[in-house]
């Protein structure tokens, strides 16, 4: 009986029926037109006749690298998903974060027009602390607040080679904070980006989208590129009417050179410079809301030398420097003015020890130097300036027990940091190719997350309206814990990959994660002297999470590609703090992407997404539909029209007020873009 009653509600939105009808017709037309056309969408857009032997020798045969080295996807003993350059182009995404929505097991939610919450397998937050994110080997995870400031990292999407997402602990290779997973963003080799590329466009939300790249040869086997991009993003929709004022704009430029020093030695030198401006309305709860303007800078330079020995062994040495800087426009800013400098040195060596054993080991050193020039009424740090050092080493042995059938990987990362001292993060993995096209893998790992600077040294004033206790207004002072601990996780993973035919792949992963010593704001005291409620951190939180992720990749025709995935996540916390980000991910997430090649000149892409309700944050479930139509009148010219979040005028995706950011709703976005290569 409930069915008809419900649908009666639905019928008063005739716009819906129309939209569905349009989508239906579109799809059918796409399928019909795609059947007779055998226009091969060439997924390898390199012309091998134009490449030299050295260049060919530098190409990966299979484009995936889950274990700090290139490896075939089907050989990986972990849950890996790769977004290729083509996937990103066809998704219509204008940021890396938006492209990550397509990946199973990854939770992406836009909090406001320029703040994102991105996590893997739960614990989502603007300061999602349990993932590691790297761009070309450079970590963009902030040691300040244990999170990633996605808004200040804007590489040119057209020059990203691939984004590899490893779900599950990558701690034994990638270091602390790679607890729930690693997002590895890899830009193209400069040898693959010769020539000029101009991208220009805009729309109602992405008001300006422009990028330009110039790439050229230094000599026969060495190349460089320089790029610049500018974006201007509109504000989001207010949750309760009114203006939101959270627009942003920024410019990023950068370069990359890849030098072939000898047939066995390669050198990469690259750098980026970003400068941006953001507006937002802050509501600390105990002060009146204020509109603030923030300026942010981020720049870095990285050098990497790679050597391949006679016996195929590999050495790599990498150094980078990174600076992140934030500045408020007010005399007494609500947010801190600060800058953080990071120096990082990494060495890695991989070689075959015996015929059946391959050893990878490495060492690293990181120095993080921060400086807070102001205090704000909300947050202060003591001391204002601090240097944190991190030493790490790792060792991994890959043992082939039965060639072509059974391999075991044993390894661990050893780390020493200034907060908690020595950390030990071991893993054991096993992989069976038990039949042709069938792979089964399993793993048990331990991973830790080291405390952040905020956890160690901050005092924060906040109102209960910013927490899960919204209904009882009160003001708190957060004081940091006396003894810092690392959060711990023990993970059990199981995966199965199956290639049903050369055009149909399945990937299944299941996991159970047990966390303890979680950072929890649950030590509430009343301070009679200041008449304030003090809230302290204890590392007493416990939680468990289990889930399943299914992914399918089907290419029924050369001109049609269908990718579908579903993720289930169930998080339980045994101790819940007043501010908790433990159950902040949706239970269900489903993605269905279809890509059609319509004749030689047209491309149609449709992506449907479903994200279920986030109970703790009271954010409703939503469906999203993104569509892209592209016309290529010439080989080097593409004109595309993209619509994102087409199914509603706006919806909220996340409601987190741990800090003062006021969440806004994500609006339907339409933009047009042209892309010219010359």
């Amino acid at each position, binding site marked *: *009986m*409930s069915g008809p009653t*419900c*649908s009666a*509600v*639905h019928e008063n*939105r005739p716009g819906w029926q129309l*939209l569905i009808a349009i*989508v*239906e017709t579109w*799809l*059918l037309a796409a*399928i019909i037109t795609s*059947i007779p056309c055998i226009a091969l969408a060439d*997924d*390898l857009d*390199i012309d*091998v006749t134009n*490449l030299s*032997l*050295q260049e*060919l*020798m530098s*190409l*990966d*045969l*299979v*484009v995936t690298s889950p274990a700090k080295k*290139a*490896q*075939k*996807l089907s050989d990986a003993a972990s849950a890996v998903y790769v977004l290729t350059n083509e996937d990103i182009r066809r998704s219509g995404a204008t940021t890396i974060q938006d492209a990550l929505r397509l990946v199973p097991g990854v939770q992406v939610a836009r909090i406001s027009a320029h703040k994102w919450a991105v996590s893997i397998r739960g614990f989502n937050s603007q300061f999602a602390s349990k993932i590691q994110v790297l761009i070309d080997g450079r970590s963009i995870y902030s040691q300040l607040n244990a999170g990633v400031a996605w808004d200040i990292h804007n590489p040119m999407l057209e020059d990203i080679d691939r984004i590899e997402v490893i779900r599950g602990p990558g701690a034994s290779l990638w270091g602390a904070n790679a607890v729930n997973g690693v997002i590895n963003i890899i830009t193209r080799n400069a040898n693959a980006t010769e020539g000029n590329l101009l991208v220009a466009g805009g729309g109602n939300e992405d008001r300006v989208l422009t990028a330009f790249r110039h790439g050229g040869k230094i000599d026969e086997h060495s190349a460089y590129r320089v790029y610049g991009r500018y974006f201007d993003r509109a504000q989001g929709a207010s949750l309760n009417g009114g203006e939101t004022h959270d627009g942003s704009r920024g410019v990023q430029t950068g370069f990359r050179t890849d030098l072939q020093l000898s*047939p066995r030695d390669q050198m990469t030198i690259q750098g980026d410079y970003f400068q941006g401006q953001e507006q937002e309305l802050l509501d600390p709860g105990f002060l009146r809301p204020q509109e603030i303007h923030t300026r942010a800078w981020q720049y870095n330079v990285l050098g990497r030398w790679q050597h391949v020995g006679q016996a*195929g062994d*590999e050495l790599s040495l990498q150094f980078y420097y990174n600076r992140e800087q934030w500045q408020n426009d007010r005399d007494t800013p609500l947010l801190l003015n600060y800058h953080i400098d990071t120096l990082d040195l990494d060495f890695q060596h991989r070689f075959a020890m015996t015929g059946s054993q391959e050893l990878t080991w490495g060492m690293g050193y990181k120095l993080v130097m921060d400086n807070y020039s102001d205090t704000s009424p909300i947050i202060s740090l003591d001391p204002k300036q601090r240097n944190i050092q991190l030493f790490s080493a790792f060792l991994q042995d890959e043992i082939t027990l039965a060639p072509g059938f059974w391999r075991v990987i044993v390894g661990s990362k050893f780390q020493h940091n200034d907060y908690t001292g020595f950390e030990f993060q071991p893993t054991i993995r096993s992989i069976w190719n038990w039949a042709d096209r069938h792979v089964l893998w399993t793993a048990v790992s331990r991973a830790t997350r080291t405390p952040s600077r905020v956890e160690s040294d901050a005092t924060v004033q906040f109102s209960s309206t910013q927490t899960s206790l919204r209904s009882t207004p009160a003001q708190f002072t957060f004081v940091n814990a006396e003894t810092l601990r690392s959060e711990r996780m023990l993970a059990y993973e199981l995966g199965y990959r199956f*290639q049903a*035919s*050369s*055009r*149909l*792949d399945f990937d299944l992963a299941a996991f159970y994660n047990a966390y303890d010593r979680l950072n929890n704001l649950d030590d509430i005291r009343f301070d009679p002297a200041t008449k304030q409620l003090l809230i302290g951190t204890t590392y007493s939180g416990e939680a468990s999470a289990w889930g399943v992720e299914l992914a399918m990749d*089907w290419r*029924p*025709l*050369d001109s*049609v590609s*269908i990718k*579908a995935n579903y993720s289930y996540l169930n998080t339980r916390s045994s101790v819940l703090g007043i501010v908790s980000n433990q159950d902040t991910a949706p239970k269900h997430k*489903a993605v269905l992407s*279809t890509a059609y090649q319509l004749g030689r000149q047209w491309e149609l892409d*449709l992506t*449907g997404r479903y994200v279920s*309700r986030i109970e703790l944050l009271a954010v*409703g*479930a*939503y*469906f999203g*539909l993104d569509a892209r139509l592209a016309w290529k009148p010439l080989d080097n010219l593409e004109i595309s029209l993209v619509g994102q979040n087409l*199914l509603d005028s706006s*919806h909220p995706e996340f409601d987190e007020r741990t800090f003062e950011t006021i969440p806004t709703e994500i609006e339907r976005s339409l933009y047009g873009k042209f892309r010219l290569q010359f």
Partner: protein
Amino acid sequence: MANSDCNSKGHAIPRPVSRQSGIIGLLLLLVGAFFSSSANSDELRSKKITAGFVFNFAKFIEWPDLPPAAPIQLCVYADREMLNIFAELSGHRIAGHEVKIVAFSTKELNNCQVLYIDRSRQNIFQCADIKHHARLLSVSNIDNFVRQCGMIGLFEVDNKLRFTINLDAVKRSELKMSSHLLRLAHIWRGKKQ
């Protein structure tokens, strides 16, 4: 009861309309066609790179008495898909010679300048077929190809393609091989005395 059930659902999901229509939309997206076969993109990529290697090898070889106007005939012994990939090289020029792609047959072998034998054909291939062709550059990704009789063997290291040159076989032949090619190669010097 039905009503309250519906309402509570409607409350839980702020946009009730989007749910049902969304499901229909998603199902519709699944409507595709049931066709199969051919290779996946990874296979295609590695095959293309392999073909690129073979094409490049030819640039470093000099064939004795090859008339300037004569084509370089590249004979391919592989599956259909690999043949198609090689066919795209047809018409390109190497040192003025037009490249011609020919599907392998033992009768044609006398006219071939380059022979590529794919691993997928290793059961049918015999060393005896090529042993007496002194002006033939033989390339293959069959395991131990250079140890048996071949000139250039392709193999994978760390997801990248590498090659071994059988120096004895090159010396025995009438081909001239550029030292540049030798520098990039792993060298096999034949059986140890």
